[in-house]
């Protein structure tokens, strides 16, 4: 990729103090994000969600975020004050979380929530915001946006709620969307639908997408490039289409441990964790 990356991250670290000493959740991760779909895959505790949150500086003290470089198109995100960061969040980088139930305000109707975000970031008039919000709901394949605008979050199903979250996060037309397990709280049949919406919007708008998930197959089908994380480090970087050629034993182990509908196995292979994986230097995902 020759063009300048949207996001440039070098040696990112997230540290939490504990009684047993410092705990490093993310230990020196480097990658860049262009106008592409980047998948970050790992198991719980691998630091994948922490990486996503660290980019938006959403790590609460006493947790610390450090990096040699954390830049959004040349802007150093680490040196910004909280107010400037507030502007970046939502306006230039948005995040969709796992469960829409916890991300939507239950006592505010959906239209007001979307409009509030839009007006906060753009200062647009109420009328313009209303139009923008309906347009956005249409974009996430909601058939009757006017009605949904008046509805409250509890009246929505899980898949609907997640589509609304996506609409809300994209209404300010950010350059980067960070999606943290956006479909794992949803039923299988709804997952495909939500994913194809994210996919279409990201393509149409030429955004960068960071897709965080534990599901290797899903990420390989959905993204262009994959970072595989283990114990706070990147153990392997590969093209999504060539996931089957992955070489790291951890990646291979993850692939082998999945039961598959199309190929029966007598026993699932169990991942043998190697202490060395933890210690080997992080692979760079920079391009």
């Amino acid at each position, binding site marked *: 990729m020759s063009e300048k990356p949207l996001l440039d991250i070098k040696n990112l670290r997230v540290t939490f103090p504990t009684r*047993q000493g410092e705990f490093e959740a993310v230990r020196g991760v480097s990658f860049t994000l262009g106008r592409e779909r980047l998948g970050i895959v790992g198991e719980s505790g691998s630091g994948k969600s922490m990486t996503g949150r660290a980019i938006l500086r959403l790590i609460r003290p006493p947790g610390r975020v450090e990096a040699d470089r954390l830049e959004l198109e040349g802007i150093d995100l680490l040196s910004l004050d909280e107010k400037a960061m507030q502007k970046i969040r939502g306006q230039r980088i948005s995040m969709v979380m796992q469960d829409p139930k916890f991300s939507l305000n239950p006592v505010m109707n959906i239209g007001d929530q979307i409009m509030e975000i839009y007006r906060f970031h753009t200062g647009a008039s109420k009328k313009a915001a209303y139009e923008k919000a309906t347009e956005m709901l249409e974009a996430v394949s909601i058939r009757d946006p006017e009605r949904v605008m008046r509805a409250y979050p509890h009246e929505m199903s899980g898949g609907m709620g997640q589509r609304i979250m996506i609409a809300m996060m994209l209404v300010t037309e950010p350059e980067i969307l960070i999606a943290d397990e956006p479909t794992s709280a949803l039923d299988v049949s709804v997952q495909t639908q939500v994913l194809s919406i994210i996919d279409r919007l990201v393509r149409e708008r030429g955004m960068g997408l960071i897709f965080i998930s534990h599901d290797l197959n899903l990420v390989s089908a959905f993204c262009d490039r994959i970072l595989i994380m283990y114990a706070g480090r990147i153990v392997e970087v590969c093209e999504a289409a060539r996931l089957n050629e992955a070489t790291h034993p951890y990646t291979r182990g993850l692939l082998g441990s999945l039961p598959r509908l199309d190929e029966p196995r007598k026993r699932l292979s169990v991942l043998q964790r190697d202490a060395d994986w933890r210690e080997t230097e992080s692979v760079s995902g920079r391009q």
Partner: protein
Amino acid sequence: MSQTDTRKPTLREWLLTDTPTSRFHARMAALYNGWLTLRSNTMAMIGLGILLFLLLIAAFAPWIAPMDPLAQDLGGRLAPPGTDGHILGTDSLGRDILSRLIYGSRITLYIVTLVAIIAPGVGLLVGTVSGYIGGWTDAILMRITDIFLAFPRLVLALAFVAALGAGIENAVLAISITAWPPYARIARAETLTIRNSDYISAVKLQGARPLRIITKHIWPLCISSLIVRVTLDMAGVILAAAGLGFLGLGAQPPSPEWGAMIAEGRRFILDSWWVATMPGLAIFTVSLAFNLLGDGLRDVLDPKEGGS
């Protein structure tokens, strides 16, 4: 990676282990972790410090108190603080206020301890039974609770003391009777959320009877929030006891109960401010200490907190 305490590394590591080797070890490690959380809360430690200090004073009152709290000296009545031998002055009968405060701490602790056992105990029993069994039992028990809650607390206590007769034991009883309904409410609310959880279903699937589920599985989870509530309520209990004392329905003269001391001092409040102020300050300090400790305990005892 780990920073170990250099003075006693072995004991600290033993207590901070993730792999306890016996029941005793596991319990000690859990206690130590709670202690560390509490210790990191400065305000809670101040509260705990004050209460320990009060406990010591109450325990060693006869040795600490400079004088007999009941000894009158009509010649030296209403002496201001700092007068020779009377650091906090004397009251209308010439009794040393400091000594009376020191002995009064025994009465205060006595009342507080009894109320802290009776009221949450009754509340826990009523609340968990009501919440777990539900149906008619729940309706009846909760309506009874409502009746108690419908009266202002001090008025109800007054009515009970008036019926039972004045005195410390009756004051304790009256305060407890008026204090249990909020605990029942809390315990019931907790029980309702716990009742449907998977771990309760799991013990039901082992054929456990309701009595066992309530006492062994639900109580341990309710008790922590009750303890927090008790410490926060203790200030109110002290004040209620003082209020009853003040109205002459609690501790009877000449016993040095703090509330009764304020009541006596009221007559001279303009000329001899210290007579009412000193016990007032004592009540204030102890109430504050309980509140601070309660806040800290809330962090330690919250079962949702993972521990690591």
